[in-house]
């Protein structure tokens, strides 16, 4: 790791960048333009976020609040829980002394904001003992923790066991390497059924006991109820946004896709995310009423469905490129949230979760059910063509959102999706949906540059006559 990289703590650098970024529009336009000159490496993404007006500003503030919680964890006497994105944060916000920090969220922040992305943190993981082929989504931030360049977590939580080996393994390694206690939630391969619910609910209660033990506090019923009710309100807003995204042209700006799932992974059940969603819905409704696409030009030349995850290249160029090319970015397949009212869940209510706040037991069951439907946890736990799994979700979303093409992008560590992405591609093509597999890494531009990916997508759309 280069000296300059290890000069400042990783989490502090993110906090500093995002906190400053969230304030830039508090000044004058002239001050903002002057600031852009001194942040050459992420001026594009700041400009992109703030071009979304109030929604962008609220999103930045939410990110700043998230990172501020992490930065101030010790001075506020709280416990830091490190985990991965497949565990729902809702539970942790119901403890008043626990701050959850998720590996992939930190990796994405750093991938977008740092000039060289997270390459050095990823490589540090390999020096510490990870395989080079472990997933970059975790390595991008875990490296900083292994190197002692971030606040040491008090305990670790992972919800990827049975879903993604490399994800679960990253936290397992961290636990052994740093000597920090870990709880692994595990999931059966099937999604629905009484015995599945029972297993997941028991496992989740074991997680709560673990968190209580290491936080030194009991889960508070009143606080939990309040967080879950906020979560439910957020789900309602998400459902309405996703429902509007079905319109042609799609009124949802491409970057809103990130706002939605980043918020869901950062701040579920927190008011700052509700504010982002309310503002998003306002923007999307306004575009829908005007018959405009969500792109800056208001035009839609193609509708793209990312059938796994997005690309988190430096400076947010992925969303900027979509926008500049008038490509509507439909809700990314993995980042769908299967609550009972979700438009993509209609007719498949058995694959959804509900939120019941009537009793403590009902709330605990709701938490377990939310977690059982997290991104990847829902779609990649069993055979790709089993009920409620990857293929069914793709077809359901295709019917609903009417994409012109679908693109697969993952990471080099993704054994699970790589073991079925050729089958997904084939099924999509046979059903009439043009499908492109990108051999690249969403978090590591060194595998294939964003320019390479961009060229591939452009050429694919040209060859298949997709761009109108």
């Amino acid at each position, binding site marked *: 790791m280069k000296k300059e990289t290890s000069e400042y703590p990783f989490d502090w650098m993110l906090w500093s960048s995002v906190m400053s970024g969230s304030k830039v529009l508090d000044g004058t336009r002239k001050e903002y333009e002057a600031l852009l000159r001194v942040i050459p490496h992420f001026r594009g993404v700041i400009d992109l976020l703030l071009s979304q007006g109030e929604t962008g500003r609220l999103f930045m503030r939410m990110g700043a609040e998230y990172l501020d919680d992490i930065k101030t964890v010790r001075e506020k006497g709280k416990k830091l829980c490190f985990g991965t994105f497949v565990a729902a944060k809702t539970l942790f916000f119901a403890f008043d002394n626990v701050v959850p920090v998720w590996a992939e969220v930190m990796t994405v922040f750093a991938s977008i904001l740092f000039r060289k992305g997270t390459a050095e943190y990823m490589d540090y993981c390999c020096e*510490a*003992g*990870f*395989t080079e*082929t*472990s*997933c970059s989504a975790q390595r991008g931030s875990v490296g900083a923790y292994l190197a002692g360049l971030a606040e040491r977590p008090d305990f670790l939580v*992972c919800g990827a*066991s*049975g879903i*993604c*080996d*490399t994800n*679960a*393994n*990253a936290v*397992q*390694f961290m636990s*052994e*390497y740093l000597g920090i206690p*870990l709880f*692994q939630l*595990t999931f*059966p*391969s*099937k999604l629905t059924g009484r*015995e599945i619910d*029972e*297993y997941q609910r*028991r*496992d989740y209660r*074991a997680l709560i006991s673990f968190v209580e033990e290491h936080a030194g506090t009991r889960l508070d019923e009143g606080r939990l109820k309040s967080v879950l009710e906020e979560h439910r309100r957020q789900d309602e807003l998400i459902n309405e946004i996703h429902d509007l995204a079905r319109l042609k042209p799609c009124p949802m700006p491409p970057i809103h896709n990130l706002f939605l799932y980043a918020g869901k992974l950062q701040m579920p059940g927190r008011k700052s995310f509700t504010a982002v969603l309310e503002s998003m819905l306002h923007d999307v409704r306004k575009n829908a009423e005007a018959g405009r696409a969500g792109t800056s030009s208001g035009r839609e030349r193609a509708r793209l469905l990312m059938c796994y995850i997005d690309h988190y290249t430096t400076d947010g160029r992925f969303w900027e490129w979509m926008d500049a090319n008038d490509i509507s970015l439909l809700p990314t397949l993995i980042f769908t949230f299967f609550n009972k009212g979700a438009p993509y869940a209609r007719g498949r209510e058995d694959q959804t979760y509900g939120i019941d706040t009537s009793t403590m037991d009902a709330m605990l069951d709701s938490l377990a059910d939310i977690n059982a439907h997290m991104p990847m946890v829902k779609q990649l736990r*069993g*055979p*790709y*063509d089993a009920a409620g799994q990857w293929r069914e979700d793709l077809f359901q979303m295709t019917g609903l959102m009417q994409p012109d093409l679908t693109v697969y992008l993952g990471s*080099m*560590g*993704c*054994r*699970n*999706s*790589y*073991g*079925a*992405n*050729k*089958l997904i591609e*084939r099924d999509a093509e046979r059903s009439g949906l043009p499908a492109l597999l990108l*051999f690249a890494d969403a978090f590591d531009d060194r595998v294939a540059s964003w320019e390479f990916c961009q060229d591939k997508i452009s050429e694919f759309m040209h060859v298949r006559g997709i761009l109108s």
Partner: protein
Amino acid sequence: MIDAMREAATTLENRFVREWKEAGGKVVGYSCTFIPEEILHAAGLLPFRLRGIGTTSLSIGDSYYGAVNCSVPKCILQLAGQGSYGFLDGSIVTNGCDSMRRLDECWRTAGRDYPGTLPGYHGYFAVPHKSVDYSVAFYEEELKRMKEALEGHFGVTVSDRALRASISLYNEGRKALQKLDGLRLRRETAISGEDAMAVLIAAHAMPLDRFIRSLEELTAKLERSPSLSNGKKRLLLMGSASDDLDFIRVIEESGAIVVADTVCYGSRTYGSLVDEQADPLHALSSHYLGNSICPRMLGYYGSRRSFVSGVIEKGAVDGVILQNVRFCDLHGSENSIFERDLEARGIPCMRIEREYGPLSETGRIRMRIDAFMERISQAASTPAV
């Protein structure tokens, strides 16, 4: 008898399988040590551990799997697609790891593209990743469903009595293998690691009663045989799936003897016995899920380290080879933690990443092993300060 076992270890449709089939028997392939062979046996089926030996191309495997998947299931799929598993009447795939779990849908899809290459019975079997009361209960239910599915497809009944008899027989096999382990771990070892691995593989590639008889004859002979140790360095082989006898031969040609292993296809399945008094399915569930040697059981590194420490001590091991097949993150990353902890105790370790399949990297592997042997020898000859 070792020749027969070597044949079983180095060919798929070996003579035991052929004889079984000629007698009208059915064979069911399975992918992972977490499938209780007892249930297959009690159903009158021959359990056969799926392997990827002898592949010379991955043209079929690569058509379904992605570039970043491990070559073990790819090789199995290759063999299946080219008809080498035509002798199977059934197949069961588990979520042993993420690459292996996808063998289920890749094989089913390949079965449509290459008609006749998917066995008549094919099942996906999910194994929990932790061993607690509710996961054991869950696994027991899954075993019950698997038993019923086998009964339905093959038109047989698996009675509790048959299951108990199978458990008893498999325990007998475990005891025989434990005895072999005892011989391997002796100071004066009379069996090479290469031959021992052939025995371990054969245990899951031929009818168990015949295997036990052969193994008992072999161990009786080994007890009278001269030592092969002859001052050779004693190694423990750990890590990913390894059923390539040539790989062990290359290690042993460097002046070592592999006296123990913890690899998949190796010594993972017989460390303890199944409870013969308890309800059979519950006993199987507790036993198989309680086996935490594979790092797919996340959170059990501590018990794996204790187990390995015991083997090192009993076998007077001079060094440990920690190998992983490329893209096997579970073993690959845990190997580095093992390396840290074992080296801290003064036990030399060598970590190596390799490909599964025909030994295409002999030169590189030989060079690494030679260097490791040199290191161990120097450490042994350096007087303590």
